């Protein structure tokens, strides 16, 4: 188990390094230079060159890359080309926003999805068909479309919830919660649909397993067969999909953050990409990658905890 964790960890570090490299190369592949950004549009070529010189942009790529890595190991993501703010601190403020939305959306998807999926698989019949069909439609709806409608109905028409903005937990827990409801709801529609389908398929498969027949033959109560044995059996794919779901929600938060005016990572990514704020852009990619990698790692551990085959292999 320890060796397993160590292996996953080293892989995780490698992944982050690769992500840094890819972004780094991407940034260098573009036509813009940080000097030009810093010097501004009216700047002469000499001014830009001077700025680039000062920023080390003219050094060989590998020098810059290893220099960057050196800073990275000290958790230093550099400062913004635009306003000199510390990127690490800025992203530190933004991470909780995106993370809490992705996390709560994933949790809500999980709860609703598993409930629906298990119901569909166990009850079957018309209800099951309704759930499966509904989920098929729900996962086809574009999140931004759902978001617009959710805002219109719940925030504008019914005035139940705030339409925009994010309140930090520390300043007002209730307001924090309220500010998360709509974005989470928007994201959870598709998420729950996917989980429901996975859970339904998993439960159906599980209930057809030979060992379930063994349990029946042992006179095991039906609830135990369903909710202990079959659910546990189908938990591994569900958890895997949940993890992918979280990652997708995390990475795909740009639109939602736009829609709900949330100061999250997606927004930072969009802004820094548009303004060619290279250090900030790399920072966003790194933070997002780290989150993805960490989630993957946790996911692997959860799967290992759930599935003895993985755990004891």
């Amino acid at each position, binding site marked *: 188990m320890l060796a397993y964790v160590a292996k996953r960890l080293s892989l995780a570090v490698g992944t982050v390094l690769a992500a840094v490299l890819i972004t780094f190369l991407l940034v260098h592949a573009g036509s813009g230079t940080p000097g030009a950004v810093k010097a*501004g549009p*009216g700047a002469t070529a000499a001014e830009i060159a001077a700025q680039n010189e000062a920023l080390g942009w003219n050094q060989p790529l590998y020098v810059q890359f290893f220099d960057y890595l050196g800073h990275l190991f000290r958790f230093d993501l550099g400062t913004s080309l*635009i*306003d000199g703010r510390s990127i690490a601190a*800025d992203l530190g403020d933004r991470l909780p926003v995106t993370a809490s939305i992705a996390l709560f959306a994933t949790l809500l998807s999980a709860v609703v999805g598993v409930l629906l999926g298990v119901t569909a698989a166990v009850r079957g019949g018309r209800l099951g068909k309704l759930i499966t069909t509904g989920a098929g439609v729900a996962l086809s709806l574009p999140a931004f479309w759902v978001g617009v409608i959710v805002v219109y109905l719940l*925030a504008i028409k019914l005035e139940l919830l*705030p339409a925009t903005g994010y309140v930090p937990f520390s300043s007002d827990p209730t307001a924090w919660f309220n*500010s998360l409801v709509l974005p989470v709801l928007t994201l959870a529609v598709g998420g729950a649909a996917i989980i429901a389908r996975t859970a339904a398929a998993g439960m159906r498969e599980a209930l057809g397993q030979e060992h379930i027949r063994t349990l029946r033959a042992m006179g095991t109560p039906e609830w135990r067969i369903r909710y202990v044995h079959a659910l546990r059996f189908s938990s591994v794919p569900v958890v895997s999909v949940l993890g992918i779901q979280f990652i997708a929600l995390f990475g795909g938060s740009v639109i939602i953050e736009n829609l709900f*005016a949330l100061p999250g990572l997606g927004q930072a990514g969009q802004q820094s990409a548009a303004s060619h704020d290279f250090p900030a852009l790399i920072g966003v990619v790194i933070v997002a990658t780290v989150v993805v990698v960490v989630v993957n790692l946790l996911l692997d551990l959860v799967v290992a905890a759930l599935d003895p085959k993985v755990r004891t292999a």
Partner: protein
Amino acid sequence: MNPFRTRDPLDLRRPSMMRTGVAVLAAGALTSLAACGGGSGGGAASASESDTVTIALDSDAAPNGYDPLLYAQGQFEFFSAMYDALFVTAPDGTVTPSLVSDFSNNADNTQTTLTLTDGVTFTDGKPLDSAVVKANLDRRSDPDLEAYGSLGPGQASEITDVSAPDPKTVVITWAKPQTAPENNLVDTAGVIVGPDGVADPTSLETTPDGSGAYTLNTDDTTRASTYSFEKSDDARNADDWAYDTIVFKVITDPQARANAVVSGQADVAGILDPTTIDLVESRQKTVSQGGTIVGFYFLDKTGAVNPAFGKEQARQAIGYAIDREKLVSDLHEGSRATSQFFPEDAPGFDPALDEQYAYDPDKAKQLLAEAGLPDGFDFNVTVLGQPTEDQVAVQAQLAEVGITMNFVTATSTDQLFAAVQTDPVLFNPFAPGAQPAGFVAGVLYGGFLNTQGAKEPEIEAALGGALGATGDAQTQALTDLNTALTANAWVAPAYEDFTYFGYNADKVTEPSFAGTNNYLVLSAIQPAS
């Protein structure tokens, strides 16, 4: 995603953006104040409610950090919480001393003597004195500082000298006589940054250093998204401010911004997108201010980029090809169709000009033929993201007379700013304010809208008269200037628009614009009783 939409065009944080776009608007706003006399008038001082006010802005107010001198006058709406200025604009438009307890101008208005207020301390702990004021004003030749746009060398309100004979006194010498010298030192232009900030301007990128009633709450602040200010009760003018906390939220999505004020996450929100005004007014209230002129601003008058634009007839043809009445009646109900650059309220406005340039596609075609372009011509307009409805509508109108307007999509602000050099024309709103001559001098003729340095004696002559003369002569000169701009097709306006702010009447009283400017006086925002 339109960078030049109004006073504060920034969707995207980018220094270059500020330097150009904001400079333009700053100049315009400054000049508009020239008409207003000095005098007294305090800020509101009720301050009974000690709560939080939340203001939603359409773009980041401090994209380049907390040096207020980097920004236009309109940004004082935001910076006035942290910084005090020598003079500020009151809601009625009057210029009011703030860090100045007393001031006087010499007879020919070429020298201004300021006596500084006592007991002013900056965030860095140091007191206000004349040396600090001089140090601030001595940065005026830095072209990056938008606030000093017209104070720099060679500009309309050039300062030649600043002296500090004693710690409480500052003497400013102007290059030319100024109609009301103190008006040049109002709002951001008059902001005094603390000694540490002046000594090391880069520190201002992250650390504000002002003497305002509020300090930045960095814990609750996420740059480009949420700014939170806390009132320091020991501040000199703390009682003038109603709220303990002021929160600015940057909400770039127009719908989200409107939603914010409708559903109560913001007490004040602006600038509202016209499509959202109905929504906001259905629940909350709005205030508006006219004076924004939307239309074509020709950059390539020499034809360097696109030869067609070097021909006056071709530019005029564009003016005739715009069906302004239709644009207003269908898309901008309530706005005013116009073909002149001066707003209706400004001196020099001439209703006859609108008649002269009425929609006439045949005339446009004829002009094109005269210009040697019987088949019309093509040109590019760079937009960030998608063009506005107006732009698309105008595109179709131009197509009627054979002019093809292509949209080039920029994906970064780099690209957008490069386009200012390569696009022949802008279709954007600009707010020349109530006194547009300054805008013409600083931007349209002598600035960023004329980087090619095109010359037009007619305009030059009228501009000289407008800036130098007084009384009726000045009015006549302004009319001439307006006529000349239109006749020579330096601009081809479409309509005069309003700037809208929405506010929650249950929470705040009606916000006040700073005189005829299209930004709010922050200190005047009061809790609803």
